[in-house]
């Protein structure tokens, strides 16, 4: 599985756009890039997933360049409630299903 590298922490203010970049140099052809959000004492919550170019949903956008060696999660107009840990994962198929390998993630802190 491709190893991911992302910043340990980021700070932002309410109303700003936050971009978290993740590098995954060894991503394989069939791998997808997935981002999860986790609040303390809660389960990881799926945010967005993509394979290439740009994916957008109601909460975030995911930008993936042509070489797919990195990706950027974009959170528009963050609020205090977006303070959480954000995980970038490269998902491939192993055995009988997906096995997710979580890193330490990026701790995003949003202030007033």
């Amino acid at each position, binding site marked *: 599985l491709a190893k991911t590298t992302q910043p340990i922490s980021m700070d932002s203010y309410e109303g700003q756009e936050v971009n978290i970049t993740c590098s995954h140099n060894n991503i394989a052809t069939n791998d*997808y890039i997935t981002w999860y959000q986790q609040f303390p*004492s809660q*389960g990881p919550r*799926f945010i967005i997933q993509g394979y290439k170019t740009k994916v957008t949903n109601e909460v975030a956008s995911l930008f993936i360049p042509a070489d797919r060696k990195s990706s950027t999660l974009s959170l528009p107009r963050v609020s205090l409630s977006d303070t959480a840990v954000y995980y970038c994962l490269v998902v491939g198929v192993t055995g*009988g*299903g*997906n096995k*997710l390998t979580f890193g330490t993630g990026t701790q995003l802190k949003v202030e007033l």
Partner: protein
Amino acid sequence: EPEVTQTPSHQVTQMGQEVILRCVPISNHLYFYWYRQILGQKVEFLVSFYNNEISEKSEIFDDQFSVERPDGSNFTLKIRSTKLEDSAMYFCASSRTGNSGNTIYFGEGSWLTVV
């Protein structure tokens, strides 16, 4: 939105006791997983389950652990002879298929405290 539900939300057990953590995966999902997160540490994969058998397990998932799908809706994790170091948040997850583009959804977790 469909969700994975887990019970209990918190369990305290004495060292050496057996615990069963229960999960109801999303109804049309076929792949089921257990993960755990020790306080302050990473989320770790334990086991994946498909077609009524374990498809992959980690080094953590030794003979102390077992999983079962006793009926059409529940998925359980049994931990025998619990140890202090088993104290963690245990997350159940499910996905519709095992393909890399398929989303894995997590439950809110069961917090296990071994005393």
